């Protein structure tokens, strides 16, 4: 019932978009937009009738998709729909309500598999879309917030530049630093586990390190290792070291006493217990650290570039273009970094799934 009310409200708002003067006449000037708007209204009305959940969802989906095209068409070119077009915004408000209703229908779908990805994917696309429409519709100055289409255009036209930046920051600094930092943290944890005195000394100190803004050592390391990617890799090493150390130490303590007793009764040596029981038991913690580190590493490398770098690199590009107020380039770099970070994280999550398939969290 409440959902039906939502849809009625959406329909009302969208219809009001046509009749609000003085915009009512202007819709007629763009026949295609008018046609699409009518299809949207029709779809939304059909969705209101409750014959069949699937048909209802389908008509709503069509209404949302077709409706999305209407504001884009109306905003194209210097039409009468500048900053203050009440009709357009009423229509858009109704569209948002319709979208909400559709998303709530999708989120009631049984979860699992690709179905679970539909709602968030639609939500993300809708956010990008609203960003575009609002920025263009309200004529937000480009310095403040560029439209996604602008960012996409910059991405496409300056791809070569971005590729070189990406190679400098990600493929050189981040990957090298990440590998060294994670391995060092892991090895030190194994040694500290073998020598309890060391472990008891290191654990409180590395706990302290999580409260300390480690990124602050970036200027020092840039001074030591020079402007090229080596100094950024060094920052990444330091930043990724502590999470790996703490997590691995916790993980090595994760195998429970019964299991250790069993290994003991098999007369297993330290090395055997480590390799066959305790390291596998620590794997979920190690992967947790690797996932945390994957995003930390990228951030650290970018921030380190603010303190000096050759004339390429993602962080250099950001600071240089911000100074020239080329905000669209900055957003393009951020999009690249976000994509790289997500993919890095995703790859590690996939490896984790393959390596720790036995863990309860994957067997549910």
């Amino acid at each position, binding site marked *: 019932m409440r959902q039906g009310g939502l849809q009625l409200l959406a329909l009302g708002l969208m219809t009001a978009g046509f009749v609000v003067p003085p915009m009512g006449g202007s819709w007629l000037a763009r026949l295609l937009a008018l046609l699409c708007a009518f299809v949207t209204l029709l779809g939304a009305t059909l969705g209101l009738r409750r014959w069949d959940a699937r048909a209802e969802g389908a008509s709503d989906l069509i209404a949302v998709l077709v409706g999305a095209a209407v504001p884009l068409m109306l905003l194209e070119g210097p039409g009468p729909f500048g900053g203050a077009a009440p009709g357009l915004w009423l229509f858009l408000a109704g569209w948002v309500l319709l979208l909400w209703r559709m998303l709530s229908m999708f989120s009631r779908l049984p979860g699992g598999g690709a179905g679970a990805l539909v709602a968030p994917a639609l939500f993300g696309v809708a956010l990008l879309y609203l960003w575009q429409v609002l920025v263009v519709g309200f004529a937000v100055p480009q310095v403040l917030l560029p439209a996604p289409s602008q960012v996409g255009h910059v991405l496409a036209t300056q791809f070569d530049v971005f590729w070189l930046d990406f190679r400098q920051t990600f493929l050189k600094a981040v990957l090298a630093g990440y590998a060294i930092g994670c391995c060092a943290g892991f090895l030190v944890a194994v040694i500290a586990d073998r020598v309890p005195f060391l472990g008891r000394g290191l654990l409180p100190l590395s706990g302290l390190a999580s409260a300390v*803004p480690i990124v602050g050592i970036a200027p020092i390391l840039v001074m030591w290792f020079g402007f090229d990617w080596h100094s950024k890799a060094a920052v990444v090493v330091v930043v990724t070291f502590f999470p790996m150390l703490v997590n691995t130490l916790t993980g090595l303590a994760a195998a429970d006493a019964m299991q250790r007793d069993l290994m003991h009764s098999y007369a297993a040596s330290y090395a055997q217990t480590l390799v066959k029981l305790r390291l596998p038991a620590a794997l979920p913690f190690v992967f947790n650290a690797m996932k945390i580190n994957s995003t930390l590493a990228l951030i650290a490398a970018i921030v380190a570039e603010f303190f000096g770098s050759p004339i390429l690199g993602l962080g250099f590009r950001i600071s240089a273009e911000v100074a020239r107020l080329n905000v669209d380039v900055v957003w393009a770099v951020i999009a690249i*970094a976000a994509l790289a970070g997500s993919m890095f994280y995703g790859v590690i999550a996939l490896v984790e799934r393959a390596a720790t398939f036995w863990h309860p969290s994957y067997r549910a």
Partner: protein
Amino acid sequence: MTTEALLLAAPPITGIGHRIAPVVAILALLVAVWYAAAVWLNTPQVVDRFESDGKSWNARQLIEASWSMERPVLPAPHQIARNFFETVFETPVDNKRSLVYHAGVTVSATLLGFVFGTVLGVLLAVGIVHSPVLDRSLLPWIIASQTVPILAIAPMVVVVLGSLGFVGLFPKAVISMYLCFFPVTIGMVKGLRSPDPLQLDLMRSYSASRAQVLHKLRWPAATDFLFASLKVAIATSLVGAIVGELPTGAQAGLGARLLSGSYYGQTIQIWSALIMASIVGVVLVALVGVAERLVARHMGRSA
């Protein structure tokens, strides 16, 4: 009473020694390595200077000189300690050279951003717990937002807000907020869902409204999660405030000290700013811990 009995009656000192000794040993080792590294990294410059002066030198002079350079590659711990002491205790707080003054600027931005971030994080969590749409659609994006190098946006936020006329505290606080809302949201979603089904059923049988369930059951159940998240959040908030001070050439704040130190090669200044930042971070986290204990006592739990 014999001394033996006294010793037996005394609290188990060995327990404390057991925990403190390793930390002290590691710290001592670190300081020793530090001094050695200072010699190793600074000697090339010292040798250059001696040679250009045409003086002969022995090992002792070399080491002494490398521990007392004005712009060393790696300052020795006592140099940092002296600079720290001078800028913290011997400089008036309203002086631009006082580290307390710079720390105060950073802390105010940190706390403002922390408050904003906590409020935003809690609101998002409440929304996510109560709306299946937000749960399914928004939560994945909040998690994905953490793969975005948010600090990378910092310079832009500062510049953009600056062009709108917002300068000083506010842009830095926005960056802190952006960083610290995430742990709060994730922790609180978990916390608000932590009451078990039996308890929720009981509230239902009282015909409690959603607001009542939130206020009387979910919120108290989530306090542990809230404080665990707040400890993470305030540390990241500090990082956000420091990074927020980097891009605009801010005149005040620990980040500004780091940046000006790196421009002018004032390594000692960088290190003492870093030490200050670390102390501030540890103190802030400890304060959240104190608040946690107070709240736990207020709620009638012995934590």
